[in-house]
């Protein structure tokens, strides 16, 4: 059976390209156009990581300013209005523009490499996701510099952020920033999930997926189901402010607590969207430096999935100080304690791995040890906060500030810095300095504890969060000064990291493909990997393919123009088909600019949604519309799934 499509004979289809067509290889373009049009997951991943890190530095500077203001009682370095904007920008940046995006960016860079494929699924959509994210960040910092930065806290509670009290445009910028980051995050999530299920190297069955990839997969599913809540929330907020809806207006049958439910139904899983990738990084680093395979792989995978599920059952513990029924509080207390179990399981598995291995104390492992210490302390205060009577006492005090920084810096930033040291050679081909790295680690570790441990005591003594100053008579001066000294130490530590990066980029020791003798597939490739990653996708038969001769073959015969990717089956990673992947294009950038005009315009007039939709639609159609040359190249490689088509036609299957 030839199974020619009806119509193919009469010329409805593009004529297949000849040999010359398929030989012209669209390599990564250089120059400014190459920069603007790239769809390579590594280039987009690196610029995502760099952007998120720059925003981390911005938010860190804001944190340092707050610590300077609070260093002594009755300080007047920063006034109350600016201080409100500063703590709101600090929290908003760290949560929405740094922590979640940088973890997504790590997935964008490493998931395709670790599963052995040539690009992320939907690469143009990822380019769009990056631009939208970048423009959102530029918008909010422009607003902040112009003194219209948001000032109602990173969770933007109504009625403070609502039309009655949140006058001006400050909270509207906040609400649209959320839209920018969520659009970007959701698109990356869909791409990573598809990549993990459909583009794994042949032989990488689900019980051979690296734990880092499992962690990212769990995270992306959390993003898929949690981020819609904050999008619905921020859209309702801006509608209340802009066109007079009454979602959060109790006088017209709305309810301020509805906002808190919507926000925390997203906000609590968000903590785990930041923390679970951190767990993935720990699981990538621990076995390599313990020089043995990870202990308890199945328990680790089940724990990651359990954490992702349970994270959706905790949100009300942020609302213990509201009029929630006691029965509800009891449930959420129990759930908040239960989620400690899967994390503890993973901790014990890592300890077992290190205990029975031969640990090599290099900088990445030091960061993981720092993670153990800080995270456990943050987890313990989390259990304290999960109990309602204690929570009522210390709600909205510095105790909570201490707790959340122990969890987020311990659980995510320490693994992330460990990950930077571990993977920097892969990004750049050069090693970071070990000596500067140790200084960086110890100053960070000591500075962190000096900065944040005193806040526990300040909170128990009753110092509230989000106050721009306090009276000397309260007796909080000494601990605040100590805390500020800790913050200065962290600033020095991060500055040393930047020095380390700059020196390494200029004159770091060459790394080679696999400087740590690591086990996963990204280390098989040269550092940094070439565009398109690999011509021959590996065939694997092991969970740790580089440690036990687990690469047993290669996939041959994939075209490089257009770049073809092997698509495999979801569970067993059995070869299914080869697919021509998109080539570089300017349209994702154009569509992102049009989207930005729509989002920013809608802060000022609802009609922007109508008029702004027109350029967005045009850009999206131009993005989708195929060219003759591209279609010819695809046709040259085309091979229909004859059996499937015959089945759809009700014909007998033939070989």
């Amino acid at each position, binding site marked *: 059976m030839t199974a020619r*499509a009806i119509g193919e004979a009469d010329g409805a289809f593009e004529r297949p390209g000849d040999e010359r067509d398929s030989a012209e290889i669209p390599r990564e373009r250089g120059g400014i156009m190459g920069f603007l049009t790239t769809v390579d997951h590594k280039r987009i991943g690196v610029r995502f990581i760099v952007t998120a890190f720059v925003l981390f530095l911005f938010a860190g500077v804001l944190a340092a300013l707050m610590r300077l203001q609070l260093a002594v009682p009755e300080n007047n370095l920063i006034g109350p209005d600016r201080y409100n904007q500063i703590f709101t920008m600090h929290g908003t940046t760290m949560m929405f523009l740094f922590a979640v995006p940088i973890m997504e960016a790590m997935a964008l860079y490493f998931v395709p490499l670790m599963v052995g494929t040539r690009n992320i699924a939907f690469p143009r959509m990822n380019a769009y996701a990056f631009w939208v994210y970048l423009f959102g960040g530029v918008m909010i910092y422009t607003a902040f510099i112009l003194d219209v930065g948001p000032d109602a806290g990173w969770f933007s509670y109504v009625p403070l952020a609502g039309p009655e009290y949140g006058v001006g445009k400050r909270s509207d910028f906040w609400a649209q920033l959320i839209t920018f980051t969520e659009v970007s995050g959701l698109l990356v999530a869909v791409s990573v999930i598809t990549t993990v299920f459909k583009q794994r190297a042949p032989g990488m069955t689900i019980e051979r997926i690296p734990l880092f990839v499992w962690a990212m997969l769990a995270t992306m599913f959390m993003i*898929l189901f949690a981020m819609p*809540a904050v999008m619905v929330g921020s859209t309702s907020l801006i509608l209340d402010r802009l066109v007079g809806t009454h979602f959060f207006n109790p006088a017209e049958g709305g309810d301020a607590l509805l906002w808190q439910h919507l926000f925390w139904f997203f906000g609590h899983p968000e903590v785990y969207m930041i923390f679970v990738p951190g767990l993935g990084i720990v699981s990538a680093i621990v076995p390599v430096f313990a020089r043995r395979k990870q202990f308890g792989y199945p328990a680790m995978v089940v724990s990651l999935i359990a954490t992702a599920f349970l994270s959706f059952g905790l949100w009300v513990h942020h609302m213990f100080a509201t009029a929630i029924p006691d029965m509800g509080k009891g449930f959420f207390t129990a759930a908040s304690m239960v989620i400690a179990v899967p994390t503890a399981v993973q901790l014990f598995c890592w300890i077992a791995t290190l205990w029975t291995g031969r640990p090599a104390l290099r900088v990445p492992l030091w960061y993981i040890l720092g993670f153990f210490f800080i995270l456990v302390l943050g987890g313990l205060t989390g259990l304290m906060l999960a109990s309602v009577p204690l929570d009522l006492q210390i709600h909205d005090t510095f105790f909570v500030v201490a707790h959340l920084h122990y969890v987020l810096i311990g659980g995510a930033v320490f693994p992330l810095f460990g990950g930077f040291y571990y993977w920097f050679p892969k990004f750049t081909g050069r090693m970071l300095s070990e000596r500067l790295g140790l200084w960086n680690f110890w100053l960070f570790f000591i500075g962190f504890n000096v900065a944040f441990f005193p806040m526990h005591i300040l909170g128990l003594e009753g110092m509230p969060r989000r106050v721009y100053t306090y009276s000397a008579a309260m007796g909080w001066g000494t601990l605040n000064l100590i805390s500020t000294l800790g913050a200065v130490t962290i600033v020095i530590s991060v500055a040393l990291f930047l020095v380390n990066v700059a020196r390494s980029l200029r004159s770091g020791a060459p790394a080679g493909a696999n400087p740590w003798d690591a086990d996963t597939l990204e280390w098989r490739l040269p550092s940094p990997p070439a565009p398109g990653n690999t011509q021959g996708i590996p065939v694997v038969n092991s969970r740790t393919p580089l440690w036990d001769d687990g690469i047993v*073959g290669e996939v041959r015969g994939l075209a490089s123009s257009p770049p073809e990717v092997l698509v495999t089956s979801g569970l067993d990673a059995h070869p299914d088909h080869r697919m021509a992947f998109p080539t570089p294009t300017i349209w994702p950038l154009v569509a992102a600019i049009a989207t930005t005009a729509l989002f920013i315009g809608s802060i000022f007039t609802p009609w922007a949604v109508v008029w702004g939709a027109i350029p967005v639609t045009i850009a999206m159609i131009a993005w989708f519309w195929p060219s003759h040359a591209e279609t010819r190249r695809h046709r040259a490689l085309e091979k229909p799934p004859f059996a499937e088509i015959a089945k*759809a036609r009700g014909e007998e299957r033939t070989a």
Partner: protein
Amino acid sequence: MSSVQTAAPRRDIDARALPSYGYGASSLMWWGTVGVMAIEGTVFALAIMMYFYVRTRVDVFPPDVPPPQLTFGTLNTLILLASCIPNQLAKKAGEREDLPAVRLWMAVCVLFAVAFLVVRGFEFAALNVRWDTNAYGSAVWFLLGLHTTHLATDFIDTIVLAVLMWTGPLERHRFVDVSENALYWWFVVAAWLPIYFVLYWAPRWM
């Protein structure tokens, strides 16, 4: 490309023998579409949750206004359900790679889309409440607006794809797009049914 492989390749796979696309769950487009459906399904569920949350804030429901008129909402439900027939025929034609049938049924789908977008306009006019009347009105307009956004985007998607199937440039992989476009349409119809009962019948039954 250099590599640090330690073993000589033994189980090579020749990809040239594999097809260059596949239908349903074997295609990446299916996974992308299902991912988007998961996100938007969550958004619909949350919007319905908001509606009932607002319901708990008042004693009389709907507060101070009559429920939406049934005529246009019910008519549109029937049109949406009827549109499933050409939609499924377009999907099957795509999977058979039957180009004339794809062109025909996609054109019929576009006509249906025009019909329900027009009727949707009358639906908005017959809600008996404005978005700024009270929180109930806000929730009603949010739900209907959300679903209308999906109708409009899928209308544009379908037109663009239908035009491409008429004019080219064509490759056979586009038949997968036809199939996935139809899958998404099923989702838009399936999402409408609970919204229809919430908007038009919950105020009468509760």
